[in-house]
């Protein structure tokens, strides 16, 4: 007979207010195998843990059941506690009487009854637990960073500075991302390019960073410490070794298309670098718009290239590489405005998005930094800024707040007052949200010193009147109807997850929220980790974020990567599947359901009398197995067991509830 100790946690009033601890203890004392029962106000505290260690010694306990919060919260804490007392850490069983009981019930009677039932279940399981042991695995001490915006750049630099090799994969021809498109940055108004470009150059020159542009992640296999990633190097049509970046090719290219970098406000050529400070400063051919690739004639770039670097025959290359850790830093898209016909975007050239406005203000932008109306090239006198376009709108857009728009709109109002003296900024808002160091002061400056007029009201309609635009709203504070005649309307468009975020999430076995932002492992305590060990998040791919937060998160992700890569080896998770080959029928149902490719077929030789026969059985690759248990359910003869969750244990749990 096992000697089981049961410890009930009050969790302050979290559990004790809803579950009758005394009654639960009394019930636990009568459960088979239970020789000791105790309780504590905070079991996770040092005092609480000491109590468990002492009881194990004093009462010769060989199995421990703790009734407390979810194992997600403190399983590791308590495993260490029982291990310190000399028991195998897997002799611990947790009954979740908080999240699955006290937090979801109001009635003390039923909550207590359920808590008793959960304890009984855990006791039944603990009585059948076996010792489990981890094995050591090697680590590939290199990191992959996906996305070359400021998040990816910062993470790559920090990991590389710590002495580890980093591959930085970027899908565009240059790194830089959204930050490269911005003019000034809040709340200091320093020039975005001036602070970003040096970091881009650092990336290019860093001995530990391998820059892989115009490329995308195709496939991810393996697990923490040992990922195998297939990267598609898209055919650039330019030999990176030969190209000197002289720019003769794009000066002569006859094919012009809208520049993505300039948000369609200027043209680029079919062979192009996205912007002058591009890193690497070597062009790529956009084959969909190249005359040679679409019609078979042209080849002007090849003729003018002094280095002979143009290569129309290049093919996409698939490269397989190994990494110990991955940082995802794929950034964001701006919200599409198809649902906002009331703002006349796309119907009138003087209605623009905030990112387009950034390009207009930018010295390297299409107007050389002059704010001019796209319709007639004249400076605007009156400009309306509409906030929350596509944000906080559960009917037509994103229900969430995009977080950055209040601040960048204040910035735009300030820049307008600086660049166009005498111009008036009208900012339409629902609420102004400026939590952040020096943020409120920055907003104050917009209306106090720079003359912006803030109007509390969502704009309902924008329509052209002659060469002007009429903006209709109400000032909800005064109750005055508002009808402004302006020269330009700037829409503070919301922040969306990347269109392909879900696809990437699937490749990485990480999850997304309802709006396709990648999920962190814990919203407060594990903000840069994901539920998949070894995969970390940085920047707006995890949720809308400004530059300071993005950089902080990128550095945090880098620290997590570095502390992982610094280890000599990793301990494997011992709760993996195990095949009893005596029972295995070899029908391989398990292989079909395994999501991790951890099951393979194997042939064993068996002696039947004098004859030796070969028989097919399943085999688990314990390095790949994540312990999900799908195989154990699919196995008809019951030959597969998940260690720590054996069929026998689970049936005992069911019996404990039902019998």
């Amino acid at each position, binding site marked *: 007979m096992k000697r089981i100790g049961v410890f009930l946690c009050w969790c302050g009033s979290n559990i004790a207010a809803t579950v009758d601890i005394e009654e639960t203890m009394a019930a636990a004392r009568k459960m088979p195998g239970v020789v000791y029962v105790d309780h504590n106000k905070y079991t996770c505290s040092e005092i609480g843990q000491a109590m468990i260690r002492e009881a194990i010694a004093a009462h010769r306990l060989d199995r421990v059941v703790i009734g407390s919060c979810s194992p997600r919260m403190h399983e590791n804490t308590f495993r260490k506690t029982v291990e310190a007392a000399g028991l195998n850490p897997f002799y611990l069983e947790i009954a979740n009487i908080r999240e699955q009981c006290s937090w979801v019930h109001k009635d003390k009677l039923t909550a207590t009854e359920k808590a008793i039932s959960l304890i009984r279940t855990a006791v039944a399981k603990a009585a059948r637990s076996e010792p489990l042991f981890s094995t050591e695995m090697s680590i590939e001490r290199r990191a992959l960073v996906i996305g070359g915006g400021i998040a990816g750049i910062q993470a790559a630099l920090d990991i590389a500075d710590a002495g580890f090799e980093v591959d930085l994969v970027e899908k565009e021809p240059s790194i830089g991302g959204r930050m490269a498109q911005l003019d000034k940055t809040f709340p200091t108004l320093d020039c975005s390019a001036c602070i970003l470009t040096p970091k881009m150059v650092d990336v290019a020159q860093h001995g530990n960073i391998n820059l892989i542009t115009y490329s995308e992640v195709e496939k991810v296999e393996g697990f923490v410490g040992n990922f195998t990633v297939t990267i598609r190097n898209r055919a650039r049509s330019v030999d990176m070794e030969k190209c000197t970046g002289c720019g003769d090719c794009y000066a002569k290219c006859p094919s012009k298309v809208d520049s993505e970098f300039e948000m369609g406000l200027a043209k680029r050529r079919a062979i192009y670098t996205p912007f002058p400070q591009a890193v690497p400063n070597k062009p790529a051919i956009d084959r969909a718009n190249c005359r040679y690739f679409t019609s078979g004639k042209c080849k002007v770039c090849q003729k003018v290239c002094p280095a002979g670097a143009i290569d129309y025959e290049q093919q996409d290359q698939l490269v397989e590489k190994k990494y110990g850790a991955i940082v995802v830093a794929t950034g964001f898209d701006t919200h599409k405005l198809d649902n906002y016909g009331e703002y006349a975007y796309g119907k009138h050239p003087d209605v623009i998005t905030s990112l387009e406005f950034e390009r207009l203000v930018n010295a390297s932008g299409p107007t050389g930094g002059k704010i001019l109306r796209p319709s007639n090239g004249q400076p605007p006198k009156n400009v309306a800024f509409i906030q929350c376009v596509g944000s906080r709108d559960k009917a037509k857009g994103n229900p969430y707040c995009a977080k950055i728009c209040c601040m960048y709109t204040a910035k735009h109002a300030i820049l307008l007052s600086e660049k166009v003296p005498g111009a008036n900024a009208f900012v339409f808002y629902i609420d102004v949200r400026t939590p952040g160091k020096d943020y409120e002061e920055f907003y104050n400056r917009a209306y106090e010193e720079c003359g912006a007029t803030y109007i509390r009201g969502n704009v309902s309609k924008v329509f*052209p009147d002659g060469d002007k635009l009429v903006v209709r709203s109400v000032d909800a504070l005064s109750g005055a109807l508002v009808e402004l005649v302006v020269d330009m309307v700037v829409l503070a468009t919301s922040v969306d997850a990347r269109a392909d975020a879900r696809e990437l999430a699937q490749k990485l076995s990480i999850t997304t929220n309802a709006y396709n932002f990648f999920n962190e492992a814990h919203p407060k305590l594990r903000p840069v980790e994901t539920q998949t060990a070894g995969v970390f998040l940085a920047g707006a791919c995890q949720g809308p974020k400004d530059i300071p937060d993005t950089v902080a998160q990128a550095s945090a992700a880098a620290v997590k990567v570095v502390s992982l890569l610094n280890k000599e080896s990793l301990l494997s998770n011992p709760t993996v599947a195990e095949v009893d080959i005596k029972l295995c029928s070899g029908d391989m149902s398990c292989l079909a359901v395994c999501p991790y490719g951890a099951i393979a077929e194997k042939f064993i030789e068996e002696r039947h009398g004098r004859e030796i026969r070969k028989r097919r059985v399943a085999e688990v690759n314990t390095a790949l197995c994540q312990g999900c248990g799908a195989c154990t359910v699919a196995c008809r003869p019951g030959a597969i067991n998940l260690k720590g969750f054996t069929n026998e244990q689970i049936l005992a749990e069911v019996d404990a509830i039902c019998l």
Partner: protein
Amino acid sequence: MRYSYYPGCTLKTKAKVFEDTTLQTARALGLEFAEVEEWQCCGALYPLNTEEVFPLLSPVRSLAQARAAGCTKLVTLCAGCYNVFRRTNRTMRSDAEVRGKINGYLEEDYRGQVDVVHYLEILKNDVGFAELAEKVSRRLEGRKIAPYYGCLLLKPRNEMDFDDVENPTIFEDFLRALGANVVEYPYRTECCGSYLSMANEEVAATAVGRILTSAFKNGAEALVVACPLCKYNLEEYQKGFREAAGSPAAGIPVLYFTELLAEALDVREQDGQ
């Protein structure tokens, strides 16, 4: 193709020309419109509260009849009827409680099997505007016409699903198929005041004045509508508006879209048959 046809009260009385031109043009286009037998008034307004269910009896009765007659589509002309029928049908498809009450009362088993369509939708989807353009014998070349959508065809946004609420194009595409010059103006979806013209005439008059001014400023020579109440308001207050504002906008003819269609297809001689 055979359609169940629901004319509604106004098309049989004040808007006779709407019905005449509809039937003439449908015939010319080879569309068979079979009038629902013993139809009743649709109620003119879809009930905007959770308590009134029985106003839906009348439209459901017509829809059930259309289904019994083997039609998959019921066509309406008046924007008011269209709004009521479309929303009623949607309710019958999605709200089991209301469906149960109505069917219990009518001793029917109607579940929204019939599609409610507007004649404009038939022209767009079943005839096709490109094909329609080919059938036009008297193109409305040089005619500057401003489409006026009003509200009932388009809104509520998530219930009508007729066209983009803010930037609809069906009227414009229709007019282009007839060869007319389409006048773009921002007030084409602004409310004309609707039934306020019965009890708050000055409000309706002002709303109408804005629409007309906007259309005129953008060069309209005529307005085209699909709603008898819009037409009434837009015509009724032109005069008062002209007197009050001295605006040259007064005197713009307001036509049903079927009148223009009949003209373009050259079938109007049959008027008064």
